């Protein structure tokens, strides 16, 4: 299992469009990818789940990845977050 945290720096937080792109990125991997913000938990492959976090600038997301391609998935998702959020 891999886990990392990311603090959102985009001032708009995670709006619909970036949420969609994030879900698309996560969907490329077979691993189970979960995301948490405080006590809210969700599945990073489901758009309602990601949008439902209501993540804003300054919020910390904790991403937990488990599965065969977890290393690659963790690297890709973290890179995506850094580049887009």
């Amino acid at each position, binding site marked *: 299992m891999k886990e990392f945290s990311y603090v959102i720096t985009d001032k*708009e937080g995670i709006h619909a*469009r970036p949420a969609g792109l994030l879900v698309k990125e996560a969907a490329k991997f077979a691993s189970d990818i979960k995301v948490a913000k405080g006590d809210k938990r969700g599945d990073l492959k489901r*758009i309602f789940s990601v949008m*439902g976090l*209501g993540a*804003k600038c300054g919020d910390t997301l904790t991403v937990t990845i488990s599965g065969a391609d977890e290393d690659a998935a963790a690297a890709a998702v973290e890179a995506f977050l850094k580049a887009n959020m």
Partner: protein
Amino acid sequence: MKTFKGISVFSGVAIGPLHFYRRETQSIERREIQDPQAEIARFEAARQEAIKKLGELHDKTLADVGEANAAIFEIHQMMLDDLDYIESVRGIITAQNVAAEYAVSATAENFEKMFSSMDDAYMRGRAADVKDVSERVLSILSPVKRCSLNADVPSIIASDDLAPSETVQLDKSKVLGFVTAEGSTTSHTSILARTIGIPAVIGAGDGLTADIDGKQGILDGFTGTLYVEPDEGTAAAMKKKQDEYLHERALLEELKGKPNVTIDGRRVQVFANVTSIDDLGSVIKNDAEGIGLFRSEFIYMGSSSYPTVDEQFAIYKRALESMGARKVVIRTLDIGADKQAAYFDLPHEQNPAMGMRAIRICLERPELFKTQLKALYMASVFGNLSIMFPMITSTWEVEEAFRIAAQARDELARANVPFRSDVETGIMVETPAAVMMSRELADLVDFFSVGSNDLTQYTLAVDRQNQKISRFFDPRHPAVLRMIKMAADNAHAAGKWIGICGELGADTALTEEFLRYGIDEISVSASSVLRVRKKVRSLDLSK
């Protein structure tokens, strides 16, 4: 005449017949069924069909109005692919033995609730997206006859609300503007209105109903007002407003991107004045080459206590970033006289125009001044900043202001906060004393900027707030113009530049005079930038 007041999404004036779009909303019954698997299959087929249609809509929108508007349909597709959504629909069908229509509408309601209970206005607005995709599936499950969205003649489209999928189906050539009873400014409908640039008003209220269909309407996108069956006076006033707006738009088309250069090749910079952070958009829209006067006092006047370094920094940074490499001249605090903020506790004065104001407050309260200067220097790394001191009369004031600025820089340097060391510093020339001392002052500073309103008031000894003597307040008075010329000559003798940032800069009857004085920059309200550009481009100084 009936008037509706809403929120403006895009300005402009639309005049024409109203077309009320009434959606055939189907009432969903809770119908029990025998074969849940067959219902799930029906849902699955409808879902796939909806995703396919969204793909087509995406491509059409992409071609019509671009990526920013088309992206929403990709999101809609993903919503229909969301496992939480699909599992909810399937779960309701199998657990309750009900028809797919009911399961979809119950699921939609739950997801809409999730969004509408969120604390972020943008996310609350997304409830409309869930509704839109769900209705798309529903309309495939049980097709309903829909009333036409498009009118026969160009019309103002009115509706209770418009879903993104509906707005993109509007025939743009038949839409003069649109007005909805509900809606949010972050909705995709609003985004679309901005993209195609038509007047749009949302949130006009429940009173907006089908009975207005076919009536004459005027939509004022500047104030967010809809007039139904306007009276003659309103119609005439709105026609005038529309003409002015169209004239301005035409100017924009004609002059945007063109240099401010006279026929004989003399360049002058035309900047814009900024009175609030909201002005930044129109500064860029009107193609100003920079900001010649950023009235920082609005930050103080809009606050209930002294704004902190960080609060000010955030605003300056935003202004500098939005202008990129273009110059932004920020005037330090110019409060006092007609501009007051209660927490400053300024004592009542007999003659406030000549009293405790502007640089005088700053020099009397150096900590207050230093806070602002630190915020300015901190922001300096984000763009092309110039700092300007108001109400200067003597060289010692400039020297003292420089000392406080140096302290501000030292404190930042000690805290390892980066700032640019090449920030230009200049002064407002708005007192006769500054003009008379302009030779000496020009040696001290990097630039002058003439504040014509105060310079007129102090030169002519006419209080500009006093209506009774307004006919004596003449900014074109030769005494004022000679003052400006003298300041310009002395600035240039010292190799410095000089601008004009008062109302007078927008007086195009004087543009030629100013250019002949050698004025290097004229800063006017954003809406006047192109008018001044037009004038500059028509002049030939060789004649």
